[in-house]
């Protein structure tokens, strides 16, 4: 619980100041890694594909969680549905903090032409504990670093990721 409360606070704070800074060019290159998680040079989570073609654990985990929690509206592999946007593009067009903000708080577009509602997932551990996983998976999809379908080879789950997951799920 502590982990995502912290994340939530950060997101709310940052989204005010940095909303205008959405990158024109997706900065998806991994600059460094920590305990099996990868980050770009702006300390934003990103995916990684190693020399053997294996994806990082979070990208694989994000594939699974996306297809459990997001797929029923946003279609397979972030491709979008008849009514919900293709998140593989949203994850590139929105900056990380805006992305987190929409997932945590939801958003509505209700007017004469649209009845679109993104629910708030802030209370849902199946989403909140895997937010970075889903984000990096969608970024990987967005730049087509990972093709449609199930990722093939993957890195092992690190002990830290496992411990964090257990702590978050409670």
């Amino acid at each position, binding site marked *: 619980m502590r982990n995502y409360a912290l994340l939530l606070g950060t997101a709310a704070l940052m989204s005010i100041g940095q909303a205008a800074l959405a990158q024109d060019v997706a900065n998806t290159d991994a600059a460094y890694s920590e305990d099996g998680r990868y980050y770009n040079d702006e300390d934003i989570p990103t995916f990684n594909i190693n020399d053997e073609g294996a994806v990082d654990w979070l990208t694989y985990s994000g594939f699974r969680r996306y297809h459990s929690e997001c797929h029923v*509206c946003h279609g397979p592999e972030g491709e979008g549905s*008849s*009514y919900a946007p293709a998140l593989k593009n949203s994850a590139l067009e929105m900056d990380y903090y805006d992305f987190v903000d929409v997932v945590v708080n939801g958003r509505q577009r209700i007017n004469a032409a649209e009845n679109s*509602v993104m629910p708030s997932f802030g209370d849902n551990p*199946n989403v909140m504990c895997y937010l970075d996983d889903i984000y990096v998976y969608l970024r990987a999809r967005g730049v087509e670093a990972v093709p449609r379908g*199930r990722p093939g080879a993957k890195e092992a789950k690190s002990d830290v990721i496992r411990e964090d997951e257990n702590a978050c799920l409670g």
Partner: protein
Amino acid sequence: MRKTKYLAAALLLSSTVTASANEELMSMMDDPNQWVIQTGDYANQRYSELDQINKDNVGDLQVAWTFSTGVLRGHEGSPLVIGDVMYVHTPFPNIVYALDLTQEGKIIWKYEPKQDPDVIPVMCCDTVNRGVAYADGKIFLHQADTTVVALNAETGAVEWSVMNGDASVGETNTATVLPVGDKVIVGISGGEFGVRGSVTAYSIADGSQVWRAYSMGPDSDILVDPEMTTHLGEPVGVDSGLNTWEGDQWKIGGGTTWGWYSYDPDENLVYYGTGNPSTWNPAQRPGDNRWSMTIMARDADTGMAKWFYQMTPHDEWDFDGINEMILTDQEIDGVERKLLTHFDRNGLGYTLDRITGELLVAEKFDPAVNWTTGVDMDPNSDTYGRPAVVAEYSTEQNGEDVNSTGICPAALGSKDQQPAAYSPETQLFYVPTNHVCMDYEPFRVSYTAGQPYVGATLAMYPAPDSHGGMGNFIAWDNTKGEIAWSLPEQFSVWSGPLATAGDVVFYGTLEGYLKAVDSNTGEELYRFKTASGIIGNVMTYTHDDKQYIAILSGIGGWAGIGLAAGLTNPNDGLGAVGGYAALSDYTALGGQMTVFALPD
């Protein structure tokens, strides 16, 4: 004019004698000039005696008029025609229009409920609604937020409304309702949110609750008599809805009731099916999970169950059992019997005796089905009535966090809710099917009220080693359990067909075609591409002695989610990615009714 008077007389009559609603409605169902219930009749046959449009002239069919619903999302169900008035519904926000057929569809009244938009994202798989019902001078609408509302058929005024569920815990509605006698019977959605399914009867007169039967839980909740209620001829026994679950999982056990309902007036029995047990991860719910995945026969007045048949004990694939039950009187094995035929998501076509619940036929209606080798039909066997599960495709046996591959059908089933039709002339069932397979990986999830409770990752793709399409439109012989003919379709067929005495069967396709085929041979006789993809059901009526065919277009629903971007087969390797058709290359959102007729 004749019909207007008839309607007025009916309204007058029924408003004073509520108990006659049943007879009134049944006599209206017998009149092929009207279409007074979504399913065509209580037997769910979707068959019309009209034959002005027939196999010799259907090729001349033309668009007579159209109507935009003003709503963009998936349009399921169909209009009703009561006398000279057509009633058209929409997905969320669930608008109802009453159109005057004597004035070229002029709008008599429009009803638009105010609903909290928070219900939208808790509707699994789009904001569809499968239409309104009529009885006793009232139009019944079951809204997305589970408000059941009775509207005055002449004015649109709200006569009563009642809340059937709680959208904040994921209880929603997509289904139509079934008026029977002096009651209206309603179901509930939300199996992907851990909702415990139920069926509830409300008084047609004032909306007061008469009975409610849950799909699982104590006997007093599920309305069974442990000695009298049977499963395959044996008493269900005490606590059948509890002792097939571990701990309190039954409280969030699914078994929702969002499909079609049918009714046998002679037996006074209502028939319907229950949905998947929740979650989709079978390891989290040991046991048979009764009475999810079950065909139910209940007394319309009390809700008491006469018999159950659980098709898929301990579901491992999300094969909801909610598809329609089609009631026919046919000869089988030389004996005339009252039958119930059901095409399940699990890919098996079942034929049962609808009085006793005896299982007569259970055969695959898509040859691709591979998760089972078949159902044990030996009444003396310990596994009588159970499907034999193939270990390779068992997500339970393969375990959590293991990806089971190549399972046919996919979770959307060999057929979803899109209702089949039956022609008493050909004695064939016309079945819209999905030809899609999947990989399925279950994993542990935790339950939060009002949040998705799924617990599996799925990948879907067209059935391998077949015609490459994702659907078939088939004719089925329910006494033999055999496919008579099968038409390959590029996409799943997600439209409820209409069979007519003109030897024609009509159905819609996801690209947006309305098609007419010969009911004996399947030969295509006519096609017209409507404004958007079709997931609605075909209906027919007459006005001024002229026959019309009407269909709602408006892509969406499960099909609009799964197929919009096209499917890929992860097992085909990279070369095949994008090799399958994407629905978004053929059609876009748009709610429109198209009405067809022969040229004057």
